[in-house]
């Protein structure tokens, strides 16, 4: 059964107002007014000469933004409640969604680009929970291959995880992935298989599984209930509605991601021998090949080295970009000053980029520039000014002169290239 655990001390932290004392404190003609107010202010204080002293510091209270507020209505609720409600860590934690001894499973095979759940994956996990809610004791299982760097699986709605690591799953290895999915199919007979319909491998793996199991999937599905599925057909010009099949490949924003609950994210056992996954010897992956990183459109580039007003040695910048195989970007100032072409400008009036890693060198982080990098995963800043906005946004900020750091980076990249070449010649 899936239930939500309640936190026991919830009752104690409830803020209770005493309406009667509040009312007496407001009503200066009430016979008990004086005693209530003085109790509230810690009793009356008499000075050495016997005069009644008023403590100006207890008048009023501190508002939410840290400023002192004086309540002219003289009925400061906050003070009268006695203690102000302090939000505890437990309040901000979402309730835990438990699935004990699940009877059914919904498998979500995520893209996990760079080892983390994409927003597409999270939407699909949300949809899986919509489907799971219609029956009881159904667990949503995330199936992922290779490295898993995601730390927020529990918040994204993962009840169970099947995580497979190993060299066989690296790179282009559809047959190895497929043999795992087949093993899961025989062990667990999931209610549904959900895949992202994406170019990152989700639709490929989903199609392979559907062909192997001989089941007709729904592709490009965007509205799914347990009975009916609406999917796009005829290159997106038609909606096809049909009964929901067991294998679904889903478009982006097919449902809302999980937002209100926390999940267990327990590992789910799978008897799988990685040596069995050696897969098809007819397909041999020879690895990614180097493409001209500046030929990749800026909006699509995965890794951008971006230059701003803090670059003084442009030849060095270009050679650093070439050594790191990064796509070049620039701030508007660098473009306006004529150091970079307009097509390289990142930001509100340039290109909105989606890079996974954005390395900003000598860019202050004006809002027009920040808008353009809103979708970047990791931002690294190199800047001399520790207080600038780019440093605040960055996941890793280095406070140093751009020229020195770029020189070091170029050296490191060249060193790595050399050691790789040596390895290859050793192997050959």
């Amino acid at each position, binding site marked *: 059964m899936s239930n939500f655990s309640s936190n026991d001390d919830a009752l104690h932290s409830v803020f209770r107002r005493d309406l009667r004392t509040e009312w007496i404190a407001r009503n200066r003609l009430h016979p008990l007014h004086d005693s209530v107010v003085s109790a509230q202010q810690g009793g009356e204080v008499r000075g050495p000469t016997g005069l009644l002293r008023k403590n100006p510091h207890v008048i009023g209270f501190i508002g939410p933004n840290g400023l002192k507020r004086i309540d002219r209505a003289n009925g400061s609720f906050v003070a009268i409640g006695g203690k102000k409600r302090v939000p505890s860590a437990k309040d901000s934690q979402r309730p835990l969604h438990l699935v004990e001894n699940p009877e059914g499973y919904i498998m979500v095979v995520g893209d996990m680009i*760079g080892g983390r759940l994409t927003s597409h994956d999270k939407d699909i996990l949300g949809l899986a929970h919509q489907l799971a809610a219609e029956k009881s004791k159904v667990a949503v299982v995330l199936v992922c291959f290779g490295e898993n760097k995601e730390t927020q699986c529990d918040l994204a709605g993962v009840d169970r995880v099947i995580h497979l690591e190993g060299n066989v799953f690296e*790179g*282009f290895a*559809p047959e190895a992935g497929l043999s795992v999915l087949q093993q899961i199919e025989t062990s667990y007979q999931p209610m549904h298989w959900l895949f992202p319909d994406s*170019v*990152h491998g989700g*639709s*490929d793996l989903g*199609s*392979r599984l559907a*062909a*192997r199991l001989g089941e*007709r*999937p*729904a*592709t*490009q599905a965007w509205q799914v209930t347990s009975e009916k599925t609406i999917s796009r*057909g*005829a*290159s*997106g*010009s*038609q*909606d*096809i*509605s*049909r009964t929901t099949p067991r294998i679904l490949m889903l478009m982006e924003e097919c449902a809302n991601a999980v937002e209100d609950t926390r999940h267990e994210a327990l590992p789910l056992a799978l008897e799988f021998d990685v040596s069995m996954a050696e897969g098809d*010897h*007819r*397909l*041999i*992956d*020879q*690895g*990614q*090949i180097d*493409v001209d990183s500046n030929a*990749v459109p800026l909006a*699509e*580039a*995965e*890794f951008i080295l971006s230059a701003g007003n803090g670059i003084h040695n442009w030849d060095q910048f270009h050679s650093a970009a070439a050594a*790191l195989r990064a796509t070049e970007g620039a701030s508007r100032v660098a473009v306006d000053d004529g150091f970079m072409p307009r097509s390289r400008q990142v930001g509100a009036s340039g290109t909105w980029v989606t890079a*996974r*890693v954005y*390395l900003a060198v000598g860019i202050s982080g004006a809002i027009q520039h*920040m808008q353009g990098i809103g979708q970047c*995963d990791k931002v690294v800043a190199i800047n001399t000014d520790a207080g600038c906005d780019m440093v*605040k*946004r960055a*996941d*890793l*900020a*280095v*406070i*140093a002169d751009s020229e020195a*750091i770029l020189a*070091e980076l170029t*050296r*490191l990249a060249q060193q790595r290239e050399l050691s790789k070449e040596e390895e290859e010649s050793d192997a050959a």
Partner: protein
Amino acid sequence: MQPNVNVVSLVSIGRHPQSGRSRRAEQDGRAVELGLSLVGEALTVVHVGEDQDPVLRQYAGMGLPSMTVLSQGKECDALPVLTSFLKAQLPSVVLTGVRSESGESSGMLPYLLAEALGWPLVPRVAEILHIKDGQAEVLLALPRGQRRSVQVTLPFIASVDNAAQEARQTAFGPGLRATLHVETVDSVVDDAAIQWEMSAAKPRPKRLKVVKAKTAADRMKAATAKPVGGGGKIMKNETPAEKAQAIFDLLLEEKVVR
């Protein structure tokens, strides 16, 4: 050019995204282009469907002396017909588009063919570099303009990505003069698809950005805040070499530097 391998390109009827008129499908055109660059006029181009469709002449106009049409009605399933055709022909390479532009557009056909024939499948091919000794070296188109090189044993099926060489222009006259070999086949009606309801695509609702703030002050903050990341690491006093190493480690960890 490798004249000794047998290459088949499968083509379908496309749909112009704006006008909705039928046209030469984008990816199928590229599949024909790729086939032509591999074996020239020895390429076999196959269409399953109605033999009278004028769009077939657009494919033929790419410089094909002839085309094969396996004639059947619109509501029939292309898969069994193609499977038996390919089993009889035994080509070394079959090229298709990734997703058709009409019908269900599921993109399942190459996968089902590969499963039925027991051949390997390479998805989203950008280029076939060479075919030698029963092996082909192909480049897969990955997202973000990246390429992956894969060696695959013949015979295989490849779906051709939009990143492949664009289809050449078609010539009207040669297209009309090309011969169509029409074969009538035993076709199977696609029963499941007949029960579906088809309708013009409804625009999908845009996702709204909902701010879940309890107080007005929080909402104000959410509306005016600058995009600020969650407090990253700041390195100030280390040597330049250490700082650069930290950056380089991050690049390696994210696998953007290989």
